[in-house]
């Protein structure tokens, strides 16, 4: 009886894994088909849509990188009379605020909002809300302090809002410090799989491209109607993604709106960052899964993709459980488990945040014109095994948070050194 139940559980687990693998196979085929049209850009240079734009930069102790980002802001090609940059100095104890003040003296469109430790320091969502209150632009873009955008990024991102159904846009982050070490190389590979294939395919197929909280933006009216960012969420970006779709709008991905980012460069920092992402994503899943199912404004394909996206950080846990269940069944001589077992190891060669399997990552790297980075694809297995632990801990933390009723939010900041660049 127990073996039969375990067999059913294992069949369920492997079915879910197979659904995800098929989904990403379809994504890969979609992007390959699209690339054959040789469409170099998905932006429209002839379109002249120039609304007022506010750029929010939440920063907490970012003295190593903030100057470089503000330099890039001064080089933006977007008309300066329609642009404002608001740097939120959120309870920084270093020179972040002072550096930003120097720029405000030289450039009128750059403003600094200082938040002391009494009202500030409550996390990125809180800092963004504070900046949002002071902003005036019709479109609000967000950049993290370690990002370095191209000069034409605002135009590329903003032109998608010419369509009134678009509620938010997302550009493409590219890892700047890729050659630094193995961690940064693997993150670069992950970004390629996630953005060059995953986000692009979701945009082409009319599914749910995800707003990543940086290198992207949203329509002011939508965030106002939603009452700002939810400060109890660790990943306010994923939360906003679903809020936008539940409100009946869509998100567009702009692949050629590239922006360079500094990836974490130690396994410890990787753990901290991914743990936050996993916890936040799970919080959003608990908050929105039923709303997505019940929504009358979302199409069926958006609901299906939305639910798969919401559960993506549960996949490493499910794979771990499948591994143990399958092993137990095979040792007991189950032929069903033996036949379905191959799906479990395939998952080991996937990236967690987007569940991009090895073939998706490889094709993404190729389409990006990369020749050697895909040779690291076999190493995905170590990143996945590491993420199994991260996501399992995150799951128990979310459960504990739910039991205790904790909604405390704080800056869970990634340290940025401002070193290393591959492109600039």
């Amino acid at each position: 009886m127990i073996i039969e139940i375990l067999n059913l559980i294992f069949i369920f687990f492997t079915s879910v894994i197979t659904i995800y693998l098929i989904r990403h196979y379809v994504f890969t085929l979609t992007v390959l088909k699209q690339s054959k049209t040789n469409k170099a850009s998905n932006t429209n240079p002839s379109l002249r849509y120039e609304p007022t734009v506010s750029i929010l930069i939440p920063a907490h102790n970012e003295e190593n990188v903030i100057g470089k980002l503000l330099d890039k802001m001064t080089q933006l090609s977007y008309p300066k009379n329609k642009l404002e940059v608001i740097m939120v100095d959120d309870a920084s104890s270093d020179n972040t605020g002072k550096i930003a003040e120097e720029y405000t003296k030289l450039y009128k469109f750059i403003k600094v909002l200082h938040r002391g430790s009494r009202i500030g320091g409550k996390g990125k969502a809180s800092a963004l809300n504070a900046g949002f209150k002071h902003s005036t632009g019709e479109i609000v873009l967000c950049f993290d302090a370690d990002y370095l955008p191209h000069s034409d990024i605002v135009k590329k991102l903003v032109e998608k809002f010419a369509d009134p159904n678009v509620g938010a846009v997302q550009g493409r982050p590219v890892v700047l410090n890729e050659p630094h070490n193995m961690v940064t190389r693997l993150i670069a590979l992950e970004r390629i799989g996630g953005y060059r294939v995953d986000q692009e395919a979701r945009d082409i197929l009319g599914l749910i491209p995800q707003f990543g909280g940086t290198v992207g933006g949203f329509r002011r009216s939508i965030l106002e109607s939603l009452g700002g960012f939810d400060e109890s969420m660790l990943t306010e970006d994923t939360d906003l993604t679903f809020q936008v779709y539940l409100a009946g709008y869509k998100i567009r991905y702009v692949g050629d709106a590239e922006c360079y980012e500094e990836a974490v460069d130690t396994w410890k920092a990787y753990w901290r960052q991914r743990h936050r992402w996993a916890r936040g994503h799970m919080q959003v899943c608990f908050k929105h899964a039923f709303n997505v199912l019940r929504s009358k404004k979302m199409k069926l394909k958006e609901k299906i993709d939305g639910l798969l996206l919401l559960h993506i950080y549960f996949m490493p846990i499910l794979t771990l459980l499948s591994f143990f269940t399958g092993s137990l069944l095979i040792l007991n001589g189950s032929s069903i488990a033996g036949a379905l077992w191959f799906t479990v190891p395939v998952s080991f060669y996937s990236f967690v945040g987007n569940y991009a399997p090895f073939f998706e990552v490889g094709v993404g790297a190729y389409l990006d014109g990369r020749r050697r980075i895909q040779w690291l694809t076999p190493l995905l297995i170590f990143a996945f095994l590491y993420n199994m632990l991260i996501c399992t801990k995150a799951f128990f933390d979310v459960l504990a948070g739910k039991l205790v009723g904790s909604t405390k939010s704080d800056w869970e900041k990634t340290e940025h050194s401002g070193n290393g660049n591959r492109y600039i």
Partner: protein
Amino acid sequence: MKTLNRIVSLSFLEAIILCLIASFRLINLQSTVTLLIFNILFVSLIFQLNGSVLKKIFMLTAGNIVGLFLNLIFYYFSLAGYDYFGVVFNAFYTLIYPILNLMWIVPFWSLSLGFLPKEQEAIRQAKD
């Protein structure tokens, strides 16, 4: 030149079919299915990328030969294991079999991509 290319391509295709038959006759159905999965992934994805068909068929053939050779080793490993440890080893082998196969499929897949001309190079070649 075209005729020569076709003849070489056909020889490679023949080699792939022979590998599949050999895997079924010399090893077992599992190894044939593994090679088929590798072929499906390779044909449906890598064949859509830039580069000559001949080069891709060559890489596919090389993959099949490598796969057949490794599966033969795995098979004899399983027979030896069964001899020493009995039925328990069969269960253990079922568990590690797909992992062992992915250990050649994923690197072979990644290496193959590196041998194709870059996306930008292919566009430039097409323009020329």
